[in-house]
């Protein structure tokens, strides 16, 4: 059975937390960005959006980008890290924006 948006978000948060561990020794800005992403993801993690199908593509992109960053970190490939973190920030921003759905059908 394919993963739901919620499951992918949980996996993404876990990956980001692993990325953030000890990253401050390498680059303070990267660490700050990843911690901020985790905070924002946790803020929106209970929203209805992650129960819906439209959450799947955007969350999958963020999950893959987080996995790429984690892989680079584990390989200590610091040259490629900056670009990968930027890509993750972009996909995370896109996801946070979409998850911030508001309003209802009522007056």
């Amino acid at each position: 059975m394919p993963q739901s948006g919620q499951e992918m978000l949980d996996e993404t948060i876990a990956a980001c937390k692993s990325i953030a561990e000890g990253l401050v020794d390498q680059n303070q800005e990267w660490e700050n960005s990843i911690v901020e992403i985790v905070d924002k993801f946790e803020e929106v993690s209970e929203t209805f959006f992650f129960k819906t199908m439209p959450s799947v593509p955007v969350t999958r992109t963020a999950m893959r980008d987080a996995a790429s960053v984690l892989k680079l970190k584990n390989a200590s490939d610091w040259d490629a890290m900056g670009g990968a973190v930027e890509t993750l920030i972009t996909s995370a921003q896109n996801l946070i924006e979409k998850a911030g759905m508001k309003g209802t059908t009522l007056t």
Partner: protein
Amino acid sequence: MIRPILITGGAGSVGRQLAGMFLAEGRSVRIFDLPFMDFSGLEEEPNVEVVKGDITEKSAVEKAVDNVGGVLHLAALLPPTSERDRDKTFAVNVEGTRNISESLKSQHSSATLVFTSSISTYGDTSKEPELIKINQLQNAIDIYAESKIAGEQILIGSGVNFVILRIASIAVPAFLEPPEPWPFTADQRVEMVHRDDVADAIKSAVDTEEAVGNVFNIAGGTTWRLTGRDYVGDFFNFMGAPVDLAIYREEPGWNDWYDTEESQKILNYQNRSYAYYSGEMKAIVEEMMAG
């Protein structure tokens, strides 16, 4: 010179939509809203006049009402905000309406005042076997509805040219959070109305002489007559979310099916069927899935 149409609460989404409809016909509008609202995109428009002020302040309202060709009175505190402070809700929804009515009267204006009321003023009608007509007893079950009933009464006795629209729950074709709980039970009769049909009804009400002095139910029409379960089931299906997440009211709320024969005959606003809305929702979700 053609006098502008005043839109109270005009900086909000429905107000902007209505402003756009009048501007598209080459007509001018006056937007009246609280000073802290976002007026971007309005102040630069050539046929838009922005008046910033508070509807509870008579002097501000008098300025807004000066020499208008019609008034679309949208400004109100809505649920859930309206349920937190009864005095504040009555100040805005009732005294604000009185201020507009009295300002029109003191200026000897013949402009039509369109008042956006609500079908929630009928309260729980779940025991009624027939469609709900405008002569149904009003029986508010929340502060908002109570304030709308009081607003209606002010206008009916005011001597100004009014049209009262009792508007059903509005279906917005957008990817939005579902309410928790839905304001009806699963088995309850539910008839919503498309957002754009509401805008058509409001515009038509100010433009149609025959509408003056009348109270109308504004709802989607026969294609929108569903049960709570059907509506919510479709909503969750559009979203691709499990329907068992839906939470309904335990006791019947204020939704029902409405007699809109007269309002449709005079205002001709039911232009978007439930199937049309469903198609819009599916397209929105497909677009999100694609990108």
